[in-house]
C-alpha cells in the first residue's frame, strides 16, 4: 500500500510517500502502527484533530476500513481557493 503525506505532515515525517506492508484493518490502526516506528511519526500524528485522511483519494474518517485500499494519504485541513 502507498502512504502519502502532504504539507506539514510531509515535513515532519520527512518524506512525501512510502510503500509499506501492513495488516492494519482501519486508518486508526495504521496510524498506531506508524506512531510505533519513529518519533517523527509520533510528532506528525500527535494531534489527530489536525489531520485529515483520504483512502484511494476519497476523504474518510479515522475509523474507515483499509480492506482493498491501495493508497492512503494524510494531510492537514485543506486550504484551497
Amino acid at each position: 500500500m502507498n502512504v502519502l503525506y502532504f504539507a506539514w505532515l510531509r515535513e515532519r515525517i520527512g518524506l512525501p510517500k512510502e510503500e509499506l506492508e501492513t495488516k492494519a484493518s482501519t486508518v486508526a490502526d495504521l496510524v498506531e502502527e506508524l506512531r510505533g516506528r519513529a518519533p517523527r511519526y509520533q510528532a506528525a500524528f500527535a494531534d489527530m484533530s489536525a489531520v485529515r485522511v483520504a483512502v484511494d483519494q476519497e476523504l474518510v474518517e479515522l475509523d474507515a476500513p483499509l480492506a482493498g485500499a491501495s493508497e492512503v494519504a494524510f494531510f492537514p485541513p485543506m486550504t484551497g481557493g
Partner: protein
Amino acid sequence: MAVCVQVDDFDLSAEMALMTAGRADIGALVSFTGLVREINGGGGMELEHYPGMTEKALQKIEAEARSRWDLQDCRIIHRYGPLEAGAQIVLVLTASKHRQMAFEAAEFIMDFLKSRAPFWKKESGRGWVDARESDEAALARWKAGITKT
C-alpha cells in the same frame, strides 16, 4: 473536462471567450478570480496539492454545482506551485440563462474549493496557512448535498 489544475497562469478574457464562442443561450456569466494577497509587506506562497485527488475533488464540486443549478457551462482553474504576491490563484466561471444561478453556483464552488479541495498554502517566511473556521462555516449554509470532498 471543465476543471484544470495547472502551474501556468490563466487569462480570464480568453476563458470567457472560449465559454461563449458559437452560442447565444448564455444570459449571465459570473467569474471569480482569487489572488495572492500581500501580507505585512511580504508576499508569495507555495501551493501544494494532491495530484489525482485534486482533479477528482474539483470534478465532484463541479458536478454538484451543475446538479443544483441549471448551468450552461462551468470552468474551474486552480494553480499550484510557487506564486508571487498579486498572482492569480484560482478562476471560477459559471454561465447560466439568468444571473442568480451563475452567482450562486460560483459562490458554492468557491466555498467548497476552500476546504474540500486538497490544496495547502505555505506563505513565504510564515509557514503553513491554517484552515479557517469561517471557511468550514461557509459550507454549512449549503447544507444538503456534498459533505465530503
